[in-house]
C-alpha cells in the first residue's frame, strides 16, 4: 500500500511569490493534517480535515495561507504571498481511526529567499 505522497519535495521561491503544496493521503484515511516543522523543532499543526471539512484551522495564518481538500481525498496548501519566515518543512499526514496514529509523508522543504 502506498504511503502519504507529497509534492514537490523541495521548493525555492522568492519572497512575495505564491507557492502550493500537494498531498495524497493513504487510501481510506478520512483525517488529513498539514504540519509545519522548523529546523530543530517538532511539527506544529496548521490545519486538520475530517473528510472535506476543516475541523481545526486555528493555527493557520489565514491572511496568507489557505488549504482545501476537494472530495475528501487530496489536499493542497497554498501560501500567497510567501515571506522569509515561511521557510520550513511542510508535512502532510493522514490517519484512519480515533486514536491518533498518523502516517506522514516525506514533506516539502520550502526555502524563501
Amino acid at each position, binding site marked *: 500500500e502506498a504511503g502519504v505522497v507529497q509534492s514537490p519535495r523541495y521548493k525555492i521561491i522568492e519572497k512575495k511569490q505564491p507557492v502550493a503544496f500537494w498531498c495524497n493521503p493513504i487510501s481510506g484515511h478520512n483525517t488529513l493534517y498539514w504540519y509545519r516543522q522548523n529546523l530543530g523543532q*517538532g511539527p506544529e499543526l496548521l490545519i486538520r480535515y475530517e473528510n472535506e471539512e476543516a475541523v481545526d484551522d486555528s493555527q493557520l495564518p489565514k491572511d496568507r495561507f489557505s488549504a482545501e481538500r476537494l472530495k475528501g481525498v487530496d489536499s493542497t496548501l497554498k501560501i500567497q504571498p510567501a515571506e522569509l519566515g515561511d521557510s520550513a518543512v511542510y508535512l502532510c499526514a493522514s490517519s484512519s481511526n*480515533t486514536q491518533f496514529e498518523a*502516517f506522514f509523508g*516525506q514533506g516539502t522543504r520550502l526555502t524563501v529567499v
Partner: protein
Amino acid sequence: TQLLEQSPQFLSIQEGENLTVYCNSSSVFSSLQWYRQEPGEGPVLLVTVVTGGEVKKLKRLTFQFGDARKDSSLHITAAQPGDTGLYLCAGADETSYDKVIFGPGTSLSVIP
C-alpha cells in the same frame, strides 16, 4: 495550553551504550505516541501508549507511559548507528483524540 517538553534536547553516545529520553507535560493525555524522524524524511510512528503505567517493548526500545498519563520515557538498549534520528513524542488531547501536540524532539546521534 498543553505543552510537551522533551529531554535531553541533544544526545550523542557511542554504539553499544544505553540511553533514556523523556517526554513530560503538566497535561493529561488520552494517548501518547513516539516517532522517529530521519533527516529529509517525515516522522515514522514507533509506538502508541494508552494506559497509565503501560510498558511496551519494540526490540531494543522500551516505552513507558506514566501512571498519571502526563509523561513518558523511551529507553534504548545497546544503541546502534541506525538508531540515529530525531525522537518526537506526541500527545493526544484527553477530550479530543485528534487534537495532538508534538514535543520539540530529542536529537540522538549514535557514533560507531
